[in-house]
């Protein structure tokens, strides 16, 4: 398949931690529609998801929701 060397970098790519050159290579490869890498990138998104949830939940001020709904209601 010629993309096994990318196996270790999907998560770092998604996190924006990969070097510019490494990101470019992965983007070009994904643009060619590699099914193996598409499956792995989905899996890597799951890892980014679980890492991001280390932050504890916090409740925004109720006016944020009120303002949001008001803005949407106008649309």
């Amino acid at each position: 398949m010629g993309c096994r060397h990318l196996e270790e970098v999907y998560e770092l790519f998604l996190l924006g931690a990969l070097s510019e050159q490494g990101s470019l290579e992965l983007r070009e490869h994904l643009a060619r529609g590699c099914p193996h890498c598409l499956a792995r990138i989905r899996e890597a998104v799951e890892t980014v998801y679980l890492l991001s949830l280390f932050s504890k939940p916090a409740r925004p001020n109720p006016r944020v929701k009120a303002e949001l709904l008001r803005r949407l209601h106008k649309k």
Partner: protein
Amino acid sequence: MNEELSAKELLARVGRHDLAALSELYDRFAPRVFGLITYILAFRDEAEEIVQEVFLRLWRESKRLDQESSSVAAWLIVTSREAALERLRTQRSRKLRPDAPREGGAEEKWPDANPRSAKPLVAASLSSRAVSKPSDPRTRAGRPGPVGPAKAPATVRVPPAWLPRTGEIELIDERLGLLHKVIEQLSKSQRQGLELAVFGGLSEEGIAAELGEPLGKVRTGLRAAVAFVRHRRRAILGTWAADI
């Protein structure tokens, strides 16, 4: 009915511009979204602004997300992180301009408004408090020096096709506590590096500069850390496959 399935139904309704459905999704996910954004950004009002932006985007993109059967929970978290880091990078680049206030002036705005110092959010889970405080990605943001725009690449936008399906995220949510214990098994330096990547939006080069460590060491450590998390996640979720 489990939460994620009903979130899927709500997403379909939001796709038909059902305001009550969006309101329900907001109630369910806003605390997670806001918790993540306030961990990345120092100021609460900015975080609240981004929460609104994220849910406005959900309103616009819900139909497409529903058509792709993408997990709304995953979309919200990934999009919130992207949006908060974009704001953080804008702040960094603004402060790095020659006419911007230099270190002392710019830095003074951060510590008191820093939610970590006021109300620690991540605590010892991803990186120990004593370790993470001096290298807080936000308090370093205004400093001219190693962490500059060239070392902070643009955030990667995740298209719906890359998002996990509802069931996959549901499984992660069920076992989140166990999955987070995996991170605690990483070495201190690996956790630090990972935290700077996840919540600081720094590249490998930026992390090396931030930690004052050789790039090769940081690169190796980060790759080992994500490989460890990936392998343990597969084992915990039972998604290990022979070709992986």
